[in-house]
């Protein structure tokens, strides 16, 4: 075989990870055009029916097709994890850049704020927003966006502080490059190798947090399915219909594991000094 394709250890992580995430994203996208059964229509004839060629993932306690509900339930998980990370990333970028660029008192105050936000464990702040604003996607995304922002702020801050005395930055400032351009064109590319894995892991953690919140009944509201509330429904029928628990768990883990693999692959690739 010609040595055209070289195999790196990180390739395996990236390939497997992309495949896992790909399956989940594909199913979520297909759900917009085609569903194998009606995810909302209750049918007493198929109540708790076990997996069969007609309903390959079986049916739930109201006779609804589990595969269709899982496909539909992937949507909020995927959407919230992606938009939430985007918000966290933008917030973190603003806070971290200001902190790292200006230093001094601004840095101290912003970092203290970041530390304080980090004191709210995972889903707690999201729960607060749910309590105050009400149940809904907006509260969840806002809560998670704020909770996850400090970790990105830290990467931006540390990175900028390390890079800002480098000669190429000093040179750029000397010839009069303005601050916004300096940050975006000259500083941010130097941080990609730290930010990329952190963003991918962030998506995974956000998906976990969302499903946890929905499991608690504070996230996506029934009858709209999400992986979390499917698991909550399934728990009551865990002995008679274990497929109601197994399949939603399977897809949640597939998504999260795939993202972890991708992040690990990116990290290994940069560590190995690959292209």
């Amino acid at each position, binding site marked *: 075989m010609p040595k055209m394709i070289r195999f790196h250890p990180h390739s395996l992580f990236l390939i497997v990870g992309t495949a896992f995430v790909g399956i989940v994203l594909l199913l979520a996208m297909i759900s917009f055009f085609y569903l194998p059964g009606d995810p909302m229509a209750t049918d007493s004839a198929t109540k708790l029916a076990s997996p069969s060629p007609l309903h390959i993932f079986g049916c739930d306690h109201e006779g609804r097709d589990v595969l269709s509900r899982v496909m539909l339930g992937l949507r909020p998980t995927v959407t919230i994890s992606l938009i939430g990370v985007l918000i966290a990333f933008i917030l973190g970028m603003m806070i971290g850049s200001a902190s790292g660029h200006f230093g001094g008192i601004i840095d101290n105050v912003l970092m203290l704020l970041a530390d304080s936000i980090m004191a709210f464990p995972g889903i707690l702040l999201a729960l607060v*927003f749910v309590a105050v604003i009400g149940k809904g996607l907006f509260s969840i995304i806002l809560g998670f966006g704020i909770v996850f922002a400090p970790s990105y702020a830290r990467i931006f801050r540390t990175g900028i502080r390390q890079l800002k005395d480098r000669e190429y930055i000093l040179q750029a400032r000397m010839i009069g490059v303005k601050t916004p351009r300096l940050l975006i064109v000259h500083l941010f590319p130097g941080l990609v190798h730290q930010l990329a894995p952190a963003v991918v892991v962030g998506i995974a953690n956000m998906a976990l947090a969302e*499903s946890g919140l929905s499991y608690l009944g504070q996230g996506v509201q029934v009858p709209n399915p999400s992986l979390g509330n499917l698991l909550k429904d399934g728990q009551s029928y865990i002995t008679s219909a274990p497929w109601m628990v197994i399949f939603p768990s399977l897809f949640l883990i597939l998504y999260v594991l795939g993202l972890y693999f991708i992040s690990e692959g990116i990290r290994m690739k940069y560590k190995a000094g690959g292209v």
Partner: protein
Amino acid sequence: MNYFLKRTFQLLCTVFLVSLITFAAFYVIPGDPARVILGPEASDGQIDALRVELGLDKPLTTRYFEWIAGAFRGDLGRSLTFRQPVSRLIAQKLPVTLSIAAMSILMTVLVAFPLGIVASGRPGKFLDQLFSVLGHIFFAFPPFVLALLMTLFLGLTLKLFVAGEYISYTDSIPGFIASLFYPSIAVAIPKIAISQKFIRASIIVEKEKDYIRTAKSHGLSDTKVMFRHILPNSLVPIITVFSIIASEILGGILVVEMVFNIPGISRLLITSINARDFPLTEGIVLYLAVMTVIVYFIADILHSLVDPRIRLR
């Protein structure tokens, strides 16, 4: 000493900010909190009564300082649904949640260190690769999914425990620990997966250093080198990881408690949110956040004890 004073000052600042964020989240919202709590059907008289009970007629800053002064005395106001002091309600549930936290941290330490040491023994070899892949897989399991699968396979199929059974610590201490054992495992497994990876990495970095080669060439046994030199010196990054894990464990417990039907802080929190019992939710959130801050503080102090150089920074 200077370092400790500085850290304590930082701790106080963070606690202050945390309380401010908690307070702001609840009361600096558009609209009237009393109306939000009672819903659209409430009469004006009811709303006015609740406004007085919550102290909403006073200015925002006065309310904040009264709340925080009360918090220092252990008085977080009264719950609207339970008609009891918030701090008493929290004190009833907290031992359960803290026991799960303590047990899962203990499990993580006891299991992750041996695994990390074994994996670091021969990097890149079979055992190391195996632990690495298993580590990734188990890290991806959300604690509550693990809890559900454990109920299904260990509880209902293998009959190792009775699903949903809980024995209070006032009835029997061993029974209490036994009923929290499986929930703690569910919380601990992802944390073991991630921390063994960090322990392994930290040990490998330390192993490469010159003084370890010197110690070995002086004829010290491998075990002695490991426990006297490598482990103590690789503790600094490990402590950082554990402080982060400790805060995440609280988040995980919130959901796992509900799966195993344990009457801990989580059920109280969810009940208070569903009932729009703002003083109770606020109190629980403040409690959990301040506890996390204190965990970080303890980790920093441990840090400085393990590596005194940190104090000079």
